[in-house]
């Protein structure tokens, strides 16, 4: 049961992120919610890679243990973090430009393109 705790956290964070996108009207808060969503997925990836009692998969530091942790999820997580960083930066700069053009960051007001 306790082994599944990270996945519950992931689920809760993911739902929090989604709800944050729907419930808030402030664009900055929506960007934060998107980041939370990304973080929850990153936690999911990291949690997947964990093996109980595992050691790092490098031979001269491996020590006695024969269970090794696969490095792939870490690599995936790092890549995902970099991508999330880029998109968050882009989202924030877009929000800045939205503020400059529309004079508001209320998501309900930004609807010139519709229909």
């Amino acid at each position, binding site marked *: 049961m306790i082994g599944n705790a990270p996945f519950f956290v992931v689920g809760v964070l993911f739902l929090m992120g*989604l709800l944050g996108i*729907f419930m808030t009207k402030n664009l900055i808060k929506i960007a934060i919610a998107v980041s939370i969503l990304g973080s929850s997925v990153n936690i999911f990836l990291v949690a997947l890679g964990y093996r109980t009692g595992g050691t790092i998969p490098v031979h001269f530091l491996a020590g006695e243990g024969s269970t090794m942790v696969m490095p792939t999820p870490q690599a995936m997580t790092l890549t995902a973090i970099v991508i999330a960083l880029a998109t968050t930066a882009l989202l924030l700069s877009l929000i800045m430009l939205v503020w400059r053009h529309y004079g508001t960051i209320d*998501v309900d007001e930004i*609807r010139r*393109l*519709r*229909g």
Partner: protein
Amino acid sequence: MWGKVYTGFGYWDASAWILFFFIAAFFTLWLRSQGRSDYKKGTDQDEIYWSGNEVPEDGEDITVPASSAYWGFRKALEPFYKGLLGMHTGIATDIVGYYVIAVAFLAVFILLV
């Protein structure tokens, strides 16, 4: 290369259609060549008939704008378009909402069936 494309029920042959196109074009051009050419050029006889009025110089005054095209179609389907346009609110979170609802719908139903 010019062969037929079989669809399972029939076939499609582009060359037959192109042949037909040339025959139709020939007839069209022949009919057109039969028109009268004895009108007096430069007089009112080669002007546009605009109910006897003078034709406006600027096309701006006589074009039907695109928004008015298919007005009747849109009017007849007013309830349908009201619903459809009401769906396109243009609010960013609504767009995400439709997406998440669609995924949730799929997720629930694929586990049920």
